[in-house]
């Protein structure tokens, strides 16, 4: 027993000992129900109504109820006078008003359910229905629409609505975006005209009503039956038709001890719902809260996915803008290219740029990395190659310097394989270096196909990078096919890879002109892979000596 009860008992006249007994019974019941020390509070009306309902369902007569109400009123009046509480629950609420007789309750119960088993079946059916529907639903508004309709049907009632506490971070209803109140009316059904009028102003207006205040203060932890609704009262006072609704049960929606909203089911009498009903509503509330959290997480993931997609679209646009829009015309040579990104952001890139003395730089590369950082890495590599190509004549020297700068300017979890060559059209020579990249195939005018053998480590991983230059003298009719491993790694529906042998054979059998070689390879690839979605980007740059 708490100190407050003892203090109250000490100043009560001994002839009024029944008052103290009634108070002790109430406090015992509440301490047991809430599992915490009793401290009187101005919002104890919910607890008082729950207790009165408990007394009635336990067989308490009307006179016992009236006596208990009087005893509790005396205690709360004393608590207010002693400045333990600012206001008494009895200041605002008339607990005598809607008391039904036991016969009335019995008759009403009989009209709802023929026997208790029917009630259990109805509750289980409703829980099952909720479980089936809310688990499929990831849209919060649709989810709550289903919930309020299911609950009123299971209760044999008509009217319910749901508030979401926008500060909980769960949801901001679009209709409430401009509202000054942080409880958004997220769903409703069967609202009487008095609540529908003025765009449901009575339900959505600030300040907090009783149940919202209880939820905000953490005093609403399970379904309660007996909240006398100030919003319904206000609607009735404003000459609105509330169809006699005055009270509602309130089901709190709590996610991991965090209140996120509540569902109200309106009734004409405060003792309409039994403890079994409340138990059902609490169970339903838990189920709905989990579904709401899941919907929130889905929404979060979806938002992130969309943002990532937008970022990648931008990265892709940047990547495309970096690739040559038109290949330069090189006297005596033909250049054709094809670039097929497998995903939104590609790892492959190619570049062709002019150098002093009519020379021309050719690059095909493949970045190993993911997402926007890899796209930036590609842009950086491309720009570094162009920049260093102006400073060094030999491709190997260019790549070694690019490697040094890549290491200095980026993290070491990405790397890039590069084929870089300098074409001198006058001398008909091509000097190249390879950093970890696929060696190109060279088809000689005489008909033979050879795979260049030069190699080296990829760039961006090691400070020590040793690369060498090799020079080819191109004869008329020679064709150089520079590619990325996405081509030779292309797979078909039998999970076979395209492979180097098939590529060499295809190049060997291709018509002579460069454009025709490209078309021939792509046609053969399509014949091999069919509609199979390829795991890697494919890039081809083909140089033909006319």
């Amino acid at each position, binding site marked *: 027993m708490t100190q407050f009860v003892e203090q109250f008992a000490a100043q009560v006249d001994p002839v009024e000992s029944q008052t103290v007994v009634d108070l002790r019974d109430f406090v015992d019941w509440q301490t047991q129900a809430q599992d915490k020390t009793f401290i009187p509070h101005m919002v104890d009306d919910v607890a008082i109504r729950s207790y009165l309902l408990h007394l009635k369902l336990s067989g308490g007569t009307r006179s016992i109820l009236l006596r208990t109400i009087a005893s509790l009123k005396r205690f709360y009046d004393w608590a207010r006078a002693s400045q333990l509480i600012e206001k008494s629950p009895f200041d605002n609420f008339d607990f005598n008003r809607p008391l039904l007789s036991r016969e009335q309750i019995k008759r009403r119960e009989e009209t709802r359910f023929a026997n208790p088993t029917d009630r259990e079946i109805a509750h289980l059916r409703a829980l099952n229905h909720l479980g089936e529907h809310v688990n499929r639903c990831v849209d919060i508004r649709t989810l709550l629409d289903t919930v309020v309709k299911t609950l009123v049907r299971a209760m044999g009632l008509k009217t319910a609505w749901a508030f979401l506490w926008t500060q909980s971070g769960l949801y901001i209803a679009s209709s409430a975006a401009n509202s000054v109140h942080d409880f958004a009316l997220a769903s409703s059904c069967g609202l009487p005209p008095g609540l529908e009028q003025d765009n449901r102003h009575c339900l959505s207006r600030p300040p907090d009503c009783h149940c919202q205040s209880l939820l905000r203060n953490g005093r609403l932890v399970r379904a309660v039956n007996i909240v006398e609704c100030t919003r319904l009262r206000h609607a009735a006072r404003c000459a609105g038709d509330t169809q006699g609704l005055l009270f509602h049960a309130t089901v709190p929606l709590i996610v991991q001890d965090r209140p996120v909203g509540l569902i109200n089911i309106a009734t004409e009498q405060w003792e309409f719902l039994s403890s079994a009903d409340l138990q059902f509503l609490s169970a339903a509330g838990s189920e709905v809260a989990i579904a709401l959290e899941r919907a929130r997480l889905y929404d979060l993931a979806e938002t992130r*996915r969309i943002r*990532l*997609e937008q970022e*990648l679209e931008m990265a892709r646009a940047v990547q495309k803008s970096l690739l040559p829009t038109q290949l330069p015309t090189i006297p005596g040579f033909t250049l054709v290219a094809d670039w097929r990104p497998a*995903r*939104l*952001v*590609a*790892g492959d890139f190619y570049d062709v740029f002019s150098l002093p003395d009519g020379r021309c730089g050719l690059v095909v590369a*493949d970045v*190993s*990395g*993911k*997402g*926007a*950082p*890899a796209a930036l890495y590609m842009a950086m590599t491309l720009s570094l190659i162009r920049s260093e190509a102006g400073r060094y004549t030999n491709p190997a020297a260019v790549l070694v310097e690019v490697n040094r700068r890549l290491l200095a300017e980026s993290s*070491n*979890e*990405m*790397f890039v*394989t590069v084929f870089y060559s300098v074409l001198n059209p006058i001398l008909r020579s091509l000097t190249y270096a390879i950093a*970890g*990249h*696929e*060696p190109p195939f060279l088809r000689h005018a005489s008909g033979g196909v050879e795979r260049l*053998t030069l*190699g080296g*480590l*990829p760039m961006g*991983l*090691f400070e020590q990078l040793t690369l060498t230059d090799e020079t080819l003298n191109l004869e008329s009719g020679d064709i150089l096919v520079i590619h990325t*491993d996405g081509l*030779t*790694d292309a*797979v078909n529906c039998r*999970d*076979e*890879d395209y492979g180097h042998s098939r590529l060499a054979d295809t190049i060997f059998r291709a018509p002579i002109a460069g454009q025709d070689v490209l078309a021939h390879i792509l046609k053969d690839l399509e014949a091999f892979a069919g509609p199979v*979605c390829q*795991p*890697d980007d494919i890039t081809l740059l083909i140089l033909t000596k006319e």
Partner: protein
Amino acid sequence: MDAGTACGIAGSFLDQNDRTRANLISVWTAPTHRKRGIGRLLVNEVLNWARGRNARALQLMVTSNNKLAIRFYQRLGFTQTGRTEPYPNDPAVVEYEMSRPIPQGIPLSPLHNAAPSCDACDSESIAEGYRSNGEIEKVPAKT
């Protein structure tokens, strides 16, 4: 290394939140040395490296449609953990997490736990770079 030439690279780092887990990243096999079991040698070297640092599991991410890589890692004892992540290059595709336990005891020989045959799957760059917060060590393959 093959006659002084590097023929494969693999990177690994220990998970910052759980040092018993190592991550396999940045695997590269020289184009001239593919389909020769280099990938298996690299993974075994990484397993030895990670075991020396008391890691109990080696894990990696692989894109869902890279069937050759998935099959390659399965042959090396990796299994899918069930965890997936959106592929950073395209959220419409997912990446699978794969993991395998790291045997304690004697170091793995190059042929230990070998795939019966990796001919078809020990192909090109099978794992792409991976974002990490930890220090990456690069392990060259030894033959």
